[in-house]
């Protein structure tokens, strides 16, 4: 199975522990991680994405792409919000991009129970990842041990959402384990 997963944690520190554990599962051959990042919701309710310091133009693209992906993880209702809100993201400052869209309210659409109902309260953080897995148990078990709540949406259903346009969602996930300086894992 090829899925996008969102693993919700109580804060960013725990989310990076989860990110590290996810890549460890990859190293062990339990799953294959194609890309990942961590998003968190600040006290103002805005989404923040830790990125490497980069050119502002690239940073904006990352923000737009991830805004759209967050919308996709919320399913069809969030999708439109994510795409529209993501387009309004400003340039990065200090390697952090604000994803201004509140793209995660998924209470108005019909989705299978096992699909993502991705909602972050202020202060919470989530690992977002593009993964291949033969079974869901490896990620579910390890993330639960770390206090994470796993949500999934199939890769194909995300990519079938036509509104993505030029923004290929996994393009904005790091294809390796990227943990910003300052997080001791």
């Amino acid at each position, binding site marked *: 199975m*090829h899925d996008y997963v969102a693993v919700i944690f109580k804060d960013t520190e725990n989310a990076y522990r989860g990110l590290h554990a996810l890549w460890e599962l990859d190293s*062990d*051959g339990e799953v*294959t*991680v*194609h*890309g990942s990042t961590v998003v968190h919701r600040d006290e103002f309710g805005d989404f923040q994405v830790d990125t*490497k*310091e*980069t*050119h502002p*133009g*690239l940073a904006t*693209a990352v923000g737009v792409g991830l805004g759209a992906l967050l919308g996709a993880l919320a399913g069809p209702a969030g999708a439109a919000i994510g795409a529209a809100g993501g387009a309004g993201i400003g340039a990065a400052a200090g390697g952090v991009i604000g994803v201004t869209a509140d793209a995660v309210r998924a209470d108005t659409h019909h989705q299978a129970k096992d699909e993502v109902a991705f909602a972050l309260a202020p202060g919470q953080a989530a690992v977002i990842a593009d993964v*291949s897995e*033969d079974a869901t148990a490896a990620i579910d078990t390890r993330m639960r041990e770390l206090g994470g709540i796993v949500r999934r949406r199939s890769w194909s259903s995300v990519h079938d959402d036509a509104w993505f346009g030029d923004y290929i969602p*996994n*393009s904005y996930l*790091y*294809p*390796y384990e*990227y943990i910003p300086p300052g997080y001791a894992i």
Partner: protein
Amino acid sequence: MRTDSDLAQVRKAAQQLHAAISDAAAKQGGAAKADIESLTQKAKAVRDSLKASVSAQDEVTKKHLNAAAAALDALQKHIAEAVKSSGRELHTSMRKTLADARASAQQVSEAIAMQRSTQSSKSHN
């Protein structure tokens, strides 16, 4: 299920290439160009090792590896364009180069996923 070490090494090299290009993209003008130009050989080396590992794979895995090779070909083309450009054109070329690096890493990773899945199926049969 661990994957074969050749493909794992190719994946690691593709990941490192992406990291180096994203670091270069953070710089301005001449510094960015110098960094990106220095990655030409690394890109070629990743492509060569990738092509060397293709023949040993099954058809589906090969498809991903060939797509990764195509992305690395495009990447080398965009590096050459970046070195010759400036301003907005330089930024555009850098962005395309980074996208190529991301695409190549994704394709190698998907090849590894296919290989792991195949090996897992065999071990369960």
